[in-house]
């Protein structure tokens, strides 16, 4: 208990005197997470909406269970897969992305993508099925129907964004394997926490944990405000 209290107090001190290495870690964490999130959203939302809106999708019996499985992919497995693909002996070794932020983004995008597709699909399917028909009748194009339906399902779609963000910003297995936790290059908050705990620097590890939680909270707070705002109108 004493250790916990002391670690917490020291953590606050470290936060107050944030040094450049710490700031670098925070910035990289946000960069990797947000880039991966945006890629996953740009690809995943249209695909999720298409699957949700297409009534007679060939292969749905296979696609949907695959997506649901993907939503529970253990990050460390994704990390291993990405590692092997990006490794020198792997098919994409030529890119030289292993142990770089680009490689970490690839891994995190793979983790976020099924979450975005699956939850968007579920959100779109939760919209009253008569709505797309009535929009078509009003003269909407297929694309307009998808847009209107997504807007209608915005609370669910926001949940998809939040879930994907939370999954990748807090994920450690994949970024550790693929990024390598290299100081000043690929070290992010989660891998730094693992390292500092191993080093016995519990106060610093705790400080990093507080930063990670704060980032997650601030972002989710913003998303929630957005959700509430949308819900009213």
């Amino acid at each position, binding site marked *: 208990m004493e250790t916990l209290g002391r670690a917490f107090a020291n953590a606050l001190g470290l936060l107050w005197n944030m040094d450049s290495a710490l700031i670098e870690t925070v910035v990289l964490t946000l960069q990797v997470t947000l880039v991966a999130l945006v890629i996953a959203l740009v690809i995943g939302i249209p695909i999720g909406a298409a699957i949700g809106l297409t009534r007679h999708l060939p292969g749905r019996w296979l696609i949907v269970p695959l997506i649901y499985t993907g939503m529970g992919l253990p990050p460390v497995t994704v990390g291993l897969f990405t590692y092997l693909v990006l*490794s020198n002996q792997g098919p994409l070794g030529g890119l030289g992305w292993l142990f770089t932020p680009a490689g970490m983004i690839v891994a995190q995008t793979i983790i976020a993508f099924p979450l975005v597709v699956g939850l968007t699909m579920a959100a779109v399917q939760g919209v009253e099925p008569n709505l797309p028909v009535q929009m078509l009748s009003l003269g909407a194009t297929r694309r307009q129907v998808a847009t209107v339906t997504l807007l209608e399902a915005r609370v669910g779609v926001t949940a998809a964004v939040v879930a994907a963000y939370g999954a990748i910003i807090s994920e450690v297995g994949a970024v550790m394997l693929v990024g*390598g*936790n*290299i*100081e*000043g290059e690929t070290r992010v908050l989660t891998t730094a926490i693992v390292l500092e705990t*191993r*080093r*016995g620097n*519990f106060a610093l590890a705790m400080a990093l944990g507080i930063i990670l939680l704060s980032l997650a909270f601030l972002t989710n707070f913003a998303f929630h405000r957005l959700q509430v705002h949308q819900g009213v109108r």
Partner: protein
Amino acid sequence: MRTRIIPFVVILLLAASCAGENSGEERVLRLATTTSTNDSGLLDALLPAFEEEHNTRVDVVAVGTGQAIALGEAGDADVILVHARSREEAFVAEGHGTARSDVMYNDFVIVGPTDDPASVDGATLASDALAAIAATGATFASRGDDSGTHSKERSLWEAAGMETDPDADWYKSLGQGMGSTLNYANEVGAYTLTDRGTFLAQGESLQGLRVMVGGASIDENDDPALLNPYGVIPVNPDKGGIDAELAEAFVEWLTSIETQAMIETFGVESFGQPLFYPDSETWRSR
């Protein structure tokens, strides 16, 4: 009705089996140690004899040397078995542990990419090799995790007359375990300092690396600075909740002739050479 009861029975049995682990008269020794002793399989080979002899169970927490020492400082372990001489001495000097005893040693080697861009192959002294690596700017991967290996690496940089943890592009501080660091070095073609045991155990997957400094076995290692001694320290019982009696018994057993003989033969069958060399006072004066 019966089918409904089955799940409850299963859950109860599971709960009972969990609780059972902590019941009974069995004593528990909490051993904080480094990953190298555990990952090599040494503890699995040694500990059953101690457990049987003292009707006890040893809970092994295998972490980096830094965390192992921190566990001892916090009183979350009864005894620590680590390899970072100066920090072990500080641990005792600060009153966290009662006394340090020699246990065994193995050695470190510097491994590097087979094309050897820094031309360090065959160097006698590790510090010379490090100086050459720094001079050519060849990539060097550091554990960077305050482990015993990292401590050793720092002392070698000092011996080379350089600052430790160089702030340079070619110096990659990974903050990861030995296995991951070796994989990284193999993948990007970097030099690194490793304990010989882990390098041998992982050899299959490290085709791009070979030993540059330290020779094929410990007998060929001509740099005394690369020796890697392990020490065992019982945690100071003043911290409370420490089973000092059992910790002392463990130290005595670990340094005994019989146990030391087991250490000497461990790994010979698999790797053609021992992974650890016995070095307790009792063993030396036998």
